[in-house]
């Protein structure tokens, strides 16, 4: 489902060139559960950003469901992102002036889904993440764990095949972190491809396939 071929990603920082990804080759099948580990600065986030189509490789090719997505234009990329990929951030990134329900609704708004359908799907998503009572709460009225659950509901509301999480428990206490991981794994068991970046070795061990990164290279084990 995901195939990366000779992916390089370089950043120009002043005079210097930082090679964040160095000749990455990777194939991921539908429904896999993958953890990405490695020291800080090894290129984990960059890899995920490329997979999520938020970033473009400097060179190399990326096939998503057989389609070469490195050739797509901005508007098409946005659509693929909207329909196929759910992204979960370490710092939640909820829009503070919107309620939990409105935040979850956002991707459907961007996709142009009719209001009626949106409302029922939001309701369902809220109950799935156990926040039915919090629909009208603003993000500053929610705990970190609750915020991340809203973010997960938002990431999955378009029923994407791929769920990407960049240190989703990094800002949470261990209890809420565990809950979040359970929620993500539950989704994976329903058939979603799950890729999690983590610093937590225990968490990483839970994945069927573990990727290790160092200096922009993949060290599969």
């Amino acid at each position: 489902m995901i195939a990366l071929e000779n992916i390089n990603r370089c950043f120009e920082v002043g005079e210097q060139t930082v090679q964040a990804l160095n000749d990455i080759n990777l194939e991921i099948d539908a429904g896999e559960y993958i953890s990405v580990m490695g020291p800080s600065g090894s290129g984990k986030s960059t890899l995920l950003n490329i997979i999520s189509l938020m970033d473009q490789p400097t060179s190399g090719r990326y096939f998503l469901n057989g389609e070469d997505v490195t050739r797509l234009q901005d508007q098409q990329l946005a659509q693929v992102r909207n329909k196929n990929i759910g992204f979960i951030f370490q710092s939640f990134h909820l829009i503070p002036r919107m309620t939990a329900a409105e935040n979850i609704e956002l991707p459907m708004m961007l996709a142009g889904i009719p209001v009626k359908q949106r409302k029922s799907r939001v309701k369902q998503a809220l109950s799935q993440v156990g926040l039915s009572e919090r629909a009208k709460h603003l993000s500053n009225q929610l705990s970190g764990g609750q915020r991340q659950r809203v973010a997960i509901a938002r990431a999955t509301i378009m029923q994407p095949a791929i769920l990407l999480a960049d240190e989703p428990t990094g800002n949470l206490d261990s209890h809420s972190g565990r809950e979040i991981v359970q929620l993500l794994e539950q989704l994976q068991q329903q058939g979603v491809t799950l890729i999690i970046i983590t610093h937590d070795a225990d968490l990483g061990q839970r994945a069927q396939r573990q990727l290790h990164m160092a200096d922009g290279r993949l060290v599969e084990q």
Partner: protein
Amino acid sequence: MIVSDLFLLALKTIFAQPFRATLIIIAMTIGISSVSILTALGESARSFVVGEFQALGTNLLIMMPGRSETVGGQPPVLGETPRDLTLDDAKAIAQIPLLKAIAPITIGSAPVSTAGLEREATIMGSSAALREVRHLDLARGQFIPTMDFDKAAPVCVIGQTIKEELFANRQSLGEWLRINDRRYRVIGVLGNTGQSVGVGFDEIVIIPIASAQMLFNNYSLFRILAEAKSQQAMYQASEQIRKIIKLRHEGEDDITIITQDSVVQTFNDILLSLTLAVTGIAGISLVVAGVLIMNVMLVSVTQRTAEIGLLKALGAGRRQILALFLTEAAMLSLTGAVLGILTGQAALHLLELIYPDFTFILPLWAQLAALLIAVVTALVFGVMPAYKAAALDPITALNRH
């Protein structure tokens, strides 16, 4: 994205930053209200002046001696003066069947007195037809009687001011009025003509044309006024008048004929361009509003960078971000425009209270134009910030705090 969602999202952002929104709305309000007030003033002035000229009479032809030089051609040879217009010319012109009424006019100034009261007054010599041609009302008595142009008669018709000043509380009809050293019997008093273009009929004394020529010992005419039977007849009569004058003036049609509609048209054009010029100057305030919108939106883009990044991550393309920002700018300035029009209307009503004689109209086209201009301003000045937002890289945007 559904259009209503676009408006909803824009509305939410607007309410989240009330200070910013207020600033933009106020700037737009000031811009649009000043434009609409000045347009209304110009328009009202135009319709007032045009109305005044139309009130002069209908299908009016004004003839004066000498050719207007605007036609071009050779300037008159040194020493040559245009031939005078005479009563005989007027009589000849009066034969044209297309004309309904014709009034020759001489003008002079002389002291008028009665019972020890004296003042200087404008003396107009004319004929009975003047009343019809100039749509004059009589308050009392009768107008100059219909008679031959060459026949003098010691009668006069006086304006309101003359009546009030010389015959304060007295009956004026039938009394003698002395002009220079001649006496004229007052046979009529003009109605209140109010402000009228050209001559103030309130301060005038009208006597038969022949009497005036004798009084001033001047046998050339100041003007000949004629009313044509229709607008079509007016143009045809103008041609015929030229022919007649040419015959009578040794092959020279040395006469200027102004048709009333051309005067109206000229003033209309002048005042319209004046209105547009003034409106254009007021338009500068709209540009100022536009620049303000641009700046405020740029700040907003910077403040909302992370949010824009998130929207992109969730599947918003450039086009959607662009649309979001432009919708926001358009909504804000449209609100400002509506408020501006309302403010303008209120100001005009206030002016009407202060100057009840005037009607201030803000024409519908101007209101619609104001709305359109506001939106266009918002879009033009909003495009740059919106583009900046749309071009943001999602990763960099998201990681900025």
